[in-house]
């Protein structure tokens, strides 16, 4: 009967049977792999995977399951499974329907190959006790908005808050 190897022995065996980095790199170079960034099928698969990931994150944020989403969309649970298994064919309209059901929007863009779209962390589930970047951004925007009873000092570009409560004037710099 063949003796079972321990994990350590198996790792040693793997190391003994593997190529050096230089040998493996040479082998890969000789294969002349296709450029996947020029492959529409690959591009579509990655986009589909990204959309499914976005849906899963949104479902987690909204705390809903497949049945809930199906009910919101007035579709069957099987349809949601097909979507999440990347077997459904998406149209822009079906994507928009899913986005609306999840209180989200879609941003479909065709961009340069060297460009990246950075999404705000508002799409990520927010940890308990932490603010989303989106909320922090809006708070900052509100902080810098001009209260109605403030005066704007044109020479310095500063807002001087009027003192309703008798405190000293507090200067708010428009931008730090």
């Amino acid at each position, binding site marked *: 009967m063949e003796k079972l190897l321990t*994990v350590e022995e198996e790792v040693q065996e793997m*190391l003994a049977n*593997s190529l050096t980095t230089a040998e493996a790199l040479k082998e890969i170079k000789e294969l002349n792999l296709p450029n996947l960034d020029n492959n529409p099928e690959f591009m579509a698969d990655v986009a589909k995977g990204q959309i499914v990931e976005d849906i899963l994150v949104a479902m987690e944020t909204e705390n809903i399951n497949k049945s809930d989403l199906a009910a919101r969309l007035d579709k069957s649970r099987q349809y949601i499974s097909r979507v999440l298994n990347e077997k459904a064919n998406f149209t822009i309209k079906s994507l928009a329907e899913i986005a609306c059901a999840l209180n989200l929007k879609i941003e479909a863009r065709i961009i340069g190959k060297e460009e990246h779209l950075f999404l705000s962390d508002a799409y990520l589930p927010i940890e308990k006790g932490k603010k989303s970047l989106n909320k922090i951004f809006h708070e900052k925007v509100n902080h810098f908005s001009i209260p109605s009873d403030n005066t704007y000092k044109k020479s310095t570009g500063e807002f001087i808050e009027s003192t309703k409560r008798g405190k000293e004037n507090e200067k708010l710099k428009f931008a730090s």
Partner: protein
Amino acid sequence: MKVDKAVGFIEKGAILKTKVKLIDPPEEMIPLKWQVKHKLKLLEINGVNIALTGLADLASKDIRDLKKLLKTIKLQLNSKDIIHNSQKIQKGKKSNQKKIIEIKATRGHSRLLAFFSEKNEIIICTHTYWKTSSNKKQQNREFDKAANLYQQYLKHYKKNK
């Protein structure tokens, strides 16, 4: 000097040292421009690269499965956190496997085991395997192997900190 790839550089029967390095993936397979939110590196031990050997093997034997695996890699490299889709990424369940992730080829057989660096910025690949059965025994074993390689990396990392 006699070189034993498995245990390190051996001279007169004594293990001198284990060299651990992190290697960039080949540009023709995983381009640098994919590495947006995370970087990807391949673990090299004593000049031997198990992950790269596995990827080279996969590229020569089953390009379709490699594409499926690369798709998941691209998605993970674009994502700030570990991706939620369990069909693509599986996290280790046992206590020694907590740091390990399995990157899956969706509806494919190839798997790539990896772990996150200390600051979670780099995904370090340990090895690949070909999933042959649907039971968890093989997967669990591969997670244990990745955990063993992670420990070797950790020892080296702590020593050179």
